[in-house]
């Protein structure tokens, strides 16, 4: 995510979520991404603020990221990997989460990590996720879109993940050091 709001998916994410743009006549349009701020999502309202993404069919209403592309006849003009998308919403979320740091100069971009090890699903498969009305008299108001059987994954800035991994490595190393004399005894 660039500090001007441009977002590009990684090849791994594209493969995981079937994000690549499909030909116009394809049976399955492929997926885009829903972005959910738990602050406005009733099932997680009593939990610490978390930002989640969900892979959702492009034909659904109000898909936040990678929803549309342009075509040469029926073939997509570009790959989802290179087209990118401008998302003021995700940029605002990233800033409010402190993912761009708190200094006066923002980094040019921040890498985001999808924590697939923490999938979130509603019990009955029905999720009403928060969105913002983009046009008309109610522009800016919150609205809710229904999604079914969709899994959501928390995302975080990769810098936090690196820190976490580093601290876990330290703990494991320390334990190994401690256990070595015991195994010798």
């Amino acid at each position: 995510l660039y500090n001007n709001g441009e977002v590009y998916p990684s090849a791994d994410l594209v493969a995981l979520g079937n994000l690549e743009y499909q030909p116009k006549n394809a049976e399955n349009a492929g997926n885009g991404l829903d972005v959910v701020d738990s602050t406005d999502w009733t099932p997680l309202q009593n939990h610490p603020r978390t930002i989640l993404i969900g892979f959702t069919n492009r034909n659904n209403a109000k898909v936040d990221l990678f929803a549309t592309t342009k075509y040469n006849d029926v073939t997509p003009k570009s790959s989802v990997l290179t087209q990118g998308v401008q998302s003021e919403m995700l940029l605002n979320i990233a800033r409010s989460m402190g993912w761009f740091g708190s200094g006066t100069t923002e980094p040019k971009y921040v890498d985001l990590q999808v924590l697939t090890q923490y999938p979130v699903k509603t019990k009955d498969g029905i999720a009403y996720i928060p969105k913002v009305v983009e046009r008309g008299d109610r522009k800016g108001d919150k609205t809710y879109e229904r999604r079914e059987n969709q899994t959501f994954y928390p995302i975080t800035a990769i810098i936090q993940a690196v820190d976490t991994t580093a601290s876990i490595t330290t703990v494991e190393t320390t334990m190994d050091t401690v256990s070595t004399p015991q195994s010798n005894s």
Partner: protein
Amino acid sequence: MQRLGVGIHENIVVEKVEKNDKGNLEISFKQIQDIDPMALLNTSGSGSTSFEPKTEKITVWKPTLRETDDYKTVTDKIAEVKDPLQSILLQYLTFDKIKWDIFAGTGITAETYRTKVVDYVETIYDNIVSQFAAQIKPFVGDNGNKNRILFVRQSPAKHYPKFRSRYLDTNPFIESMSIPSTASKLKYTKYEIEKSLNDGTPVGAPAAASTADAKKAEELFA
């Protein structure tokens, strides 16, 4: 027992689903309320202080056919029965889990639909309501799955509530309480407001009373 009546109501659960003695489906709804007894007793109500929840029983009538009804009209009337029930099921189930076989036992096929459907409306109605009852059964009396619901007036002449039955995609009448009320999609349409279908006042009650009162007042001060 207090009735919910025409209006938009919150924290509603399905309390009971049954067929009445005339074979029409009846769905009873109940409002779940966390009642503060002190507040209740301090309220100056109408003299019926009660912990009893508000309820409402909605009858889903069998379609009434006219001799002139063709298959298109009959299709609309069948849809007006099924669509609201589908809307209710969708509060509990995903699309892939809702199953209908509304032509079961009729022998109607795609080729014979236009000519035969008129003769099998009663069977189709029975199929719809029995299949609805079977699918909603696990959620009847489940107080944990609360909804917001909008009842419209049956007609200008009849003040009892009913489900809205058409254009439910754009004008839903039921939604999950997990949607905050500020983002609710339940609202009366312009048509319903113009026809006073958002008003559950019995015919002749307030309007007629106020006219009569005005006349009496006029006489008094004449």
